[in-house]
């Protein structure tokens, strides 16, 4: 039986396979290291990192919804300084791509974090989360405005010596406009989607189920929205695209790859099955080998359009 080549490249970033874990759903990798071999993964995207430590939102922070979940973690994280001191040395020992997801509440904060990661080895790429509120502009997310998204991208690129992946927000009228803007700004790759904004209400107590009132919807419920946005963006830009959203098994991952994504990220599925990423890699391998497909490249973008 022929062994399928699962290698993919995202710009200058080489991955041993197209399966990464999504930011915020896999901690810093350490949490999972005792139950699985992280080096089997195509890569790990660590928890969103900001310049200063952030406490996050008051609880309750999560609530289950039909085939999904809402989260309002509030991007809690330990901040750049502690990340470099406490997490990077451990991450440097890994033999898989390590992508650092960064965010800020101002454009300056974004570039400051990017600068702080400059020259640090063991970090394969930076993923820019533009889905968080822009305090300078009335709290609408950076990612909802193509121009602002482009500006964040430029500033990060100025300061960064690593491949820059911009992660798009799905809560927009035209995802293609944002994708084109960040490509024009020089982004090396695009990942999508981040969570859809949603809310759930406790009808007995008549209060929002999340202390933050609203949160981000993730899980299989949102997969059809994610697949369509990836399909649109792949047909709009020339930089590689990473598909994210509701991937639970290898068949879900294949939808994104066939639509044209060069890689995928697995998020909420890590909570349901901590080994989801590895199971998906195995599933992709078997799917290809059963069909004598020699390279995963032959799958990527192979959608036959009716």
């Amino acid at each position, binding site marked *: 039986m022929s062994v399928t080549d699962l290698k993919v490249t995202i710009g200058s970033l080489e991955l041993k396979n197209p399966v990464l874990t999504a930011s*915020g*759903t*896999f*901690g810093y990798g350490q*949490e*999972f290291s*005792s*139950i*699985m071999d992280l080096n089997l993964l195509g890569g790990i995207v660590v*928890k969103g990192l900001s310049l200063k430590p952030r*406490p*996050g939102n*008051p*609880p*309750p*922070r*999560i*609530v*289950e919804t*039909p*085939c*999904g*979940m809402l*989260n309002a*973690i509030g991007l*809690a994280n330990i901040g750049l300084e502690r990340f470099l001191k406490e997490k990077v040395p451990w991450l440097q020992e890994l033999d898989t791509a390590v992508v650092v997801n960064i965010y800020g509440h101002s454009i300056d904060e974004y570039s400051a974090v990017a600068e702080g990661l400059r020259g640090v080895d063991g970090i394969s790429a930076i993923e820019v989360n533009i889905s968080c509120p822009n305090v300078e502009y009335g709290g609408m997310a950076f990612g909802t405005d193509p121009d602002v998204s482009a500006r964040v991208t430029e500033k990060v690129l100025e300061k960064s010596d690593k491949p820059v992946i911009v992660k798009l927000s799905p809560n927009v009228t035209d995802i293609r406009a944002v994708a084109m803007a960040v490509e024009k700004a020089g982004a090396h790759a695009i990942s999508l989607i981040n969570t859809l904004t949603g809310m759930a209400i406790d009808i007995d107590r008549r209060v929002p189920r999340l202390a933050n009132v609203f949160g981000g919807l993730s*899980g*299989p419920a949102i997969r059809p929205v994610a697949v369509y946005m990836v399909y649109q963006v792949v047909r709009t830009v020339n930089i590689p695209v990473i598909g994210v959203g509701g991937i*639970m098994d290898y068949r879900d991952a294949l939808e994104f790859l066939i639509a044209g994504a060069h890689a995928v990220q697995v998020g*909420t599925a*890590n*909570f*349901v*099955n*901590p*080994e989801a990423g590895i199971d998906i890699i195995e599933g992709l391998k078997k799917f290809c080998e059963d069909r004598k497909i020699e390279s995963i490249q032959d799958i990527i973008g192979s959608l036959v359009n009716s």
Partner: protein
Amino acid sequence: MYQQNTDVIFNKRVGPETFLLGLRSGEIAAEAAPGQFVMIQVSHDLNPLLRRPFSICGTQGDDLFLVLYRVVGQGTAILSRARKGDRIPVLGPLGRGFEFPDDQQKPLLVAGGMGTAPLLFLAQAIESRDMIFMAGYRSADEILSMDEIGLSNIEPSISTDDGTAGHKGPVTELLEAQLSINSAGAPPVVFACGPLPMLKRVARHAIDHNIPCQVSLETTMACGIGACQGCAVKSSSPEIRPYYHVCQDGPVFDVKAIDWKAL
């Protein structure tokens, strides 16, 4: 910590809407400590999506661990239909359990409703000592039979809200009575698990009277291993650390570590 597909050895009804689940895993049974919990994948379908957290309430032999649970919703209802021979994915043991009392201390265990589960495991571990186990229920018909659970050596003193058995009133009154009787004797240490209102009252009393006390908390959880930060509770010293993660820093906490007003 292990991720395993465990065999269901038994899943028997031990009370109204209450079940005792026996799962086989040598590794988890060997590693399990009182107060720790497991994340159980109750559904093989996409809905409900997330695993459910359950305390480990004991072990049997060298490869069986027990979960005592009540059916309160969809996930526990699905779990209650599991049969011998089914395989259930389990992640565990997880979290920080109880710190054992030292030989000088007199352990007072206070349980409300299903809060009994983790304390049963603790009680077995410190069996030898002259500890006191207090269990509070809404009504007599909810009382868990220790024989059913296979722990006839434990004889809890009972309280019920409606007075249909034991002391009439919250179990916290049993505790407070014990503490005053006991005031002369060995220094007490309190271990509590149960509904939030009960825990709050235990906490206030313990803090006011400066009695060492450990509580086991519950929150909704997604990952159970410190990765999602979904299970936060406010700490009492925000300047040092604003939030604890119940799944990792807990579920057992020193009563003084928690900001009870925020709960």
